[in-house]
């Protein structure tokens, strides 16, 4: 699981939503806090379902939560 060309704004969105903690977000999307940490650091690419759940929690379109940067895509 190396760093991927997909970045995210989850940390920023958490702070904008009543300073939600990683644990609180983890409980809402049904994963562990460690998974949220790994996603925020870019060390883990969530499944489509999880990505949609995160976007739904923040009431934000998926493209504003996760950003694909093709210039970083070396695969």
């Amino acid at each position, binding site marked *: *699981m190396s760093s991927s060309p997909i970045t995210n704004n989850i940390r920023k969105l958490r702070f904008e939503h009543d300073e939600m903690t990683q644990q609180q977000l983890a409980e809402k999307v049904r994963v562990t806090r460690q998974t949220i940490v790994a996603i925020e650091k870019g060390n*883990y690419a969530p499944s489509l379902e999880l990505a949609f759940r995160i976007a739904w929690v923040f009431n934000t379109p998926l493209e504003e939560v996760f950003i694909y940067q093709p210039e970083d895509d070396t695969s």
Partner: protein
Amino acid sequence: MTYLQKNKAVSLMCTVLLFGYYALNVLQLQQSGRLTSISVFSLWATLIVIAIISNIVGVIITYIVFNVISVVRTNEAESEFVDERDKFIDLKGTRNAYAVTGMGVFFAAISLILDQPPLVTFNVLVFAGFSAEIFGDLSRLYLYWKAG
């Protein structure tokens, strides 16, 4: 470390200890000239029983201790869902373990082609089995560490 990481660490320790016990006994049997099929199979059967019991006990103890400490410290109950990243890491570990097992079977077949006694083939397979288990657990621990 999460519960699953601790579980894998305990499982790894158990496997290493059992493998060490097996290797030591086989070496002693060989040095004393008592390395026969019956003695090795008997040792292996003993090991299977010890492995099953120690793994069950190890997992149960880890589970109980971790949950008690977690509940006391966080005042929260254990989560009821299965995390997708944990499943993903577990699958990768299993895949790596199968790869090592496959190599072990390959080398065991080569030992038969080279007209080695069945005892050698058996020991190669046992070694492959232990190595696969250890490599699988190490893979999982590494992936947990790497993913932060």
